[in-house]
């Protein structure tokens, strides 16, 4: 007999306001319908009514766990529409900040993922404190702890402060040490591995058909990363390597993100070694008189959660239309298929491994 159960919209394991309606037969999921839209704020409409540089704060609230990444994606789109080159040093600084943001975002995901599969709050407390060390670095660089708004047309609002180099290296080696501890702690724990291995398998063919992106795509054996395939800033100078796993289950997605963090640490170190001297400041907001050079602009960026594609139709004063392809929206659409046939408790292992942010899903 099929029973219908309702989960959410307010539930500790849904990471936001997500409602899941599950049809279960015994303990097996027959069908699962995600209901979204509780956090829909109409950002795509809102940006059409604001001037170009009034919009970055709204962009940051889409993905409130990795605000810097969205901020950068939007500003880069405007730069492309205006035909502005980013200053040499600013490109390096942006790469460093984006990779630091990626580590911070993945650390928060790791804690909540462990929570979802029953490792209650031990790992979460560790990763949350570690994430704060990175947020402190980003605060030094931008002046704000969570919503930075430090990208400007052609550069940044401020350069890296003196002594940032040493402090960043200190934090990175600390996190590197802690990463080993997390891996030992989680991968030797049968409670964690048995809930992750073989759960929510997404094959290579289905991953492409469903259009999933980011770590979810790479965990299914597809070697696609915007940083490698369509490199921006200085990623090609840093010898960036993609992290791919072929199993396609929750454990593979966990492993891909862990390896990505290690890779990000390496990238930040390499960028700190090679960063050139010079000017990194962007134009002051008041001096900008945007006139669109390219009316239609598409721009891809690899955010912590996957590929974000901005499609902008530019106007002289404000965006005529900005369409945001948010990574978690399409990843969540795949949840229905991934959770079919699994046990009820595994729904959260799978949705946790997708790294959902509801602000990003609903926009």
């Amino acid at each position, binding site marked *: 007999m099929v029973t219908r159960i309702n989960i959410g919209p307010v539930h500790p394991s849904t990471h936001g306001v997500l409602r899941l309606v599950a049809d279960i037969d015994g303990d097996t999921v027959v069908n699962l319908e995600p209901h*979204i*839209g509780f956090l*829909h704020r*109409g950002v*795509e*409409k*809102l940006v*059409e*009514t604001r001037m170009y540089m009034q919009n970055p704060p709204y962009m940051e609230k889409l993905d409130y766990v990795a605000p810097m990444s969205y901020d950068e994606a939007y500003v880069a789109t405007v730069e492309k529409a205006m035909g502005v080159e980013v200053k040499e040093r600013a490109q390096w600084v942006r790469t460093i900040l984006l990779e630091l943001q990626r580590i911070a975002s993945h650390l928060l995901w790791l804690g909540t993922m462990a929570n979802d599969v029953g490792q209650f709050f031990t790992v979460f407390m560790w990763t949350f404190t570690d994430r704060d060390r990175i947020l402190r670095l980003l605060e030094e660089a931008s002046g704000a702890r969570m919503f930075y708004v430090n990208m400007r047309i052609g550069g940044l609002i401020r350069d890296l402060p003196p002594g940032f180099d040493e402090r960043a290296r200190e934090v990175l080696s600390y996190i590197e040490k802690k990463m080993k501890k997390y891996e030992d702690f989680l991968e030797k724990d049968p409670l964690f591995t048995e809930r992750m291995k073989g759960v929510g398998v997404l094959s290579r063919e289905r991953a*492409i*058909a*469903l*259009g999933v992106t980011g770590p979810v795509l790479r965990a299914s054996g*597809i070697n*696609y990363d915007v940083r490698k*395939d*369509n490199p921006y800033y200085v990623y090609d100078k840093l010898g960036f390597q993609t992290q791919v796993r072929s199993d396609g289950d929750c454990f593979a997605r966990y492993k891909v993100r862990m390896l990505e963090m290690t890779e990000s640490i390496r990238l930040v170190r390499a960028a700190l070694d090679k960063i050139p001297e010079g000017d990194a400041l962007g134009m002051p907001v008041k001096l900008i008189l945007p006139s669109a050079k390219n009316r239609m602009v*598409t721009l891809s960026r690899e955010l912590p959660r996957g*590929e974000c*594609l901005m*499609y902008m*139709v530019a106007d002289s004063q404000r965006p*005529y*239309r900005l*369409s945001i*392809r948010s990574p978690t*929206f*399409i990843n969540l*659409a795949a949840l229905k298929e991934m959770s079919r046939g699994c046990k009820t408790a595994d729904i959260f292992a799978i949705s946790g491994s997708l790294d959902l942010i509801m602000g990003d899903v*609903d926009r």
Partner: protein
Amino acid sequence: MKIERNEITQKISAMKAQGYSYLIKITAVDYEKYIEIVYMLRNMEQNKDETLEVDVDPSDAWIPTVIDQFDAADWYERELFEMFGVQVKGRHVERLLLEKWDGKPAPLRKNFVWNGPYETGS
């Protein structure tokens, strides 16, 4: 690449046969005189992106579904219907996905005024 509405299904199938097997996004832009539907496809092997654009009349806005070709089109087409009022023919949709707004005009059309009468109720 600009195409006509009646060639959507055929063109999308042809593109898929050429290796454009990954659907990035289906979106739309309201140019008031016409609505432009944008299909973005990717060829993963050759690392190439292709865009297909279709113009439809705002008063008779509909497109055929491409869900048979791309499973990823499911939520994008539903979003398109709710945000732009573009009917998607050839598929069944049970409920609204994003907004619980069933009035007219559709929110992302240009005749939907920001902070206008539809939201304030005046």
